[in-house]
């Protein structure tokens, strides 16, 4: 009896081992793709939405692309370029991913691009970073950005402001790279068509108390151009209202977006009517966008009421990554040459318009002009008032003129008088 029992046990173990070995031979090949967003630091909440966007794109493809099973290797940074590069390096060198998607913020993007140059055999695709310099200055041949950047997001808003009669404006903005790009995008056509930005108030990043800045607003202007993000935007808007201000406002892409409109507390009526612009809006009236929103709501019960900018951006970049993989049937050989050619040619109809890249591997896309409106249920959302398609990095200007202007900074562009 005992001998039989031992025989049974050995057979069982042997069979299990054989099954495991065979099982691994049966298992499909897995392709690891690195995914970098922020789970710490100031963009912790948007970062989670970025992961959601990427997950959505993968789910649409049922977890497969190019005939292989796709596995995301998720790493997280805290909005500092140092950590972004460190985590990218971990994903590439330690976890051995062959394709890397990310990062989230503008300066992280520039740092990751520089790292990408040292790893020519890996393909890097952007997450949501939107700094102009990433692709305009010293680009990396293996860094692809399917989304448009900060300056492109504001093209068309200048004309809209002039159409509303705002000929003289005052600018209040955070003092770093991304707002510089946004302001350039706005002013490129605003100034050219006769608008005047009377003065610019560059506020240090992290300023909470805008009382003195508000005190400096001149009386003879038509509107305020406010390029602040997140909690800075909420603070400014509440303080401006408290100080009795009543000038209309034009906001940057992250000044009146979901995170700001969704702050916990009483909705301030003064926000209604604020114009803004960005690569997407909560209320685009196309079947693709509606499906995108419905899928997001169904998959993520703990997400925002509507997908945020970051979910959208990570979604289109990830979808481009996977579609190109499908196009080459997962062939990453020969320095990923076939894959990169496919990426260059990738174009599809995304939830918010056509997604494609230019020769510099930067996205060419649509900008939506929006205004803050009240929904029937009392919540605020951004209503699309105008759609401006096909915007490239030269912001609608002829290339020579754009190159002469240079990249946005504190004093570029300038049209005071």
């Amino acid at each position, binding site marked *: 009896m005992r001998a039989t029992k031992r025989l049974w046990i050995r057979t069982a173990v042997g069979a299990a081992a054989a099954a495991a070995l065979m099982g691994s031979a049966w298992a499909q090949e897995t392709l690891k793709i690195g995914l970098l967003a922020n789970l710490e630091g100031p963009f912790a*909440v948007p970062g989670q939405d970025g992961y959601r966007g990427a997950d959505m794109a993968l789910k649409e493809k049922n977890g497969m692309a190019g005939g292989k099973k796709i596995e995301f290797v998720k790493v997280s940074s805290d909005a500092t370029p140092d950590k972004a590069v460190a985590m990218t390096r971990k994903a590439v060198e330690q976890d051995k991913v062959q394709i890397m998607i990310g990062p989230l913020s503008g300066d992280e993007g520039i740092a990751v691009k520089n790292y990408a140059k040292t790893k020519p055999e890996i393909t890097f695709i952007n997450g949501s970073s939107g700094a102009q310099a990433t692709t305009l200055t010293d680009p990396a041949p293996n860094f692809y950005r399917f989304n448009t950047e900060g300056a492109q997001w504001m093209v068309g808003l200048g004309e809209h402001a002039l159409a509303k009669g705002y000929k003289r404006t005052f600018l209040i903005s955070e003092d770093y790279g991304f707002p510089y790009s946004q302001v350039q995008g706005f002013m490129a056509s605003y100034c050219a068509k006769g608008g005047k930005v009377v003065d610019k108030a560059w*506020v240090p990043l992290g*300023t909470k108390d805008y009382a003195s800045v508000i005190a400096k607003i001149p009386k003879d202007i038509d509107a305020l151009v406010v390029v602040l993000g997140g909690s800075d935007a909420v603070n400014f808007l509440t303080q401006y209202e408290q*100080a*009795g201000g009543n000038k209309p406002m034009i906001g940057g892409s992250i000044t009146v977006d979901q995170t700001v409109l969704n702050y916990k507390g*009483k909705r301030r009526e003064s926000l209604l009517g604020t114009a803004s612009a960005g690569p997407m809006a909560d209320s685009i009236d196309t079947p693709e966008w509606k499906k995108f929103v419905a899928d997001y709501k169904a998959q993520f019960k703990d997400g925002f009421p509507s997908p945020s900018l970051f979910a959208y951006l990570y979604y289109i970049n990830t979808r481009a990554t996977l579609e190109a993989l499908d196009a080459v049937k997962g062939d990453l050989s020969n320095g990923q040459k076939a894959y990169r050619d496919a990426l260059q040619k990738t174009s599809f109809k995304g939830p918010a318009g056509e997604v494609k890249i230019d020769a510099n591997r930067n996205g060419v896309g649509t900008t939506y002009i929006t205004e803050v409106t009240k929904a029937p249920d009392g919540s605020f959302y951004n209503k699309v008032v105008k759609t401006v398609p096909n915007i490239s990095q030269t912001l609608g200007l002829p290339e020579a003129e754009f190159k002469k202007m240079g990249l946005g900074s504190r004093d570029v562009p300038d049209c005071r008088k």
Partner: protein
Amino acid sequence: MTEARKRIALWLLFGGPVAVFSVWAIADNPPLYFKTLLNGLTLASLYFLVASGFTLVFGLMRNVNLAHGSLFLLGAYVGWVVGENTGSWLLAVAAGFLSAAVLGLLMQVFIFRFMEGQDLRQTLVTIGLSIVLADLMLWAFGGEIYTFDPPAWIYGSTVLPVVEKFPTYRIAVLLAAIVIGIGLWSFLARTRIGMMIRAGVDDRGMLAASGVNVQLVFAITFAIGAGLAGLAGVVGGTALSISPGEDTRYLLASLVVVIVGGMGSVVGASIGALLIGLAEQFGLAYAPTYSVVFTFVIMVVALAFRPRGIMGRAG
């Protein structure tokens, strides 16, 4: 140089440029100058509210509580939840005070009591606590921005001479800070417990020797100090919203205010708050690029002349 002459020289050295600047600014744009002045005063009130608790705790227990900012933030969040559910802003303020006071009490009774005399270790523990608390609050409340809903009679703007429209709420903060400041001062100067606290600041050993339950006094003091932070959390959160990261911001502000004003002195905290609040607002209005550095430069200069702070005393 005699002491009096030295004082006059210092007043001239610092007061001189300020006077010259003020004359120029008033001539250039009077509403801006006075608005900035008022803004500075009101910001100073907020800083005073936050820093008073910090300096109280340090003065008596020699405990540099670097978790003070976390207490501020906790009071704000709890106050917000209470305010949302009851619809009363005043209840939110009370809840902010109480919740932070309770946490402070627990910290003192269960952790700091066993580390008497080990100042460095206490400070390190507060650093660890602040990191842990910050992450727990991020987990519990998320990264969204929270704003408060004060009653309508505080909200909105009032019309004042010269400055025209000015936010009513900031005036309310100024009044609140004055009331609380006077209240705190009277508490310390006139009540029996206040007397014990002051005695303890001067000589802890003697206090224990005269039969006072020192641990009880410590616990009460820490609770009050922490409660003040929580109260400031709701008050400050109404003026400027609440989000993760506010804890470090207000901790740094308290730190600079208390270093400049002198540790352990409530009057010092008010002087420090005035200096820093005014400097920050004038900096933002007239020289925004370096306004924040300006604040710290003041701190460095103050230290160079008076290492213990303006009202601080040795020991």
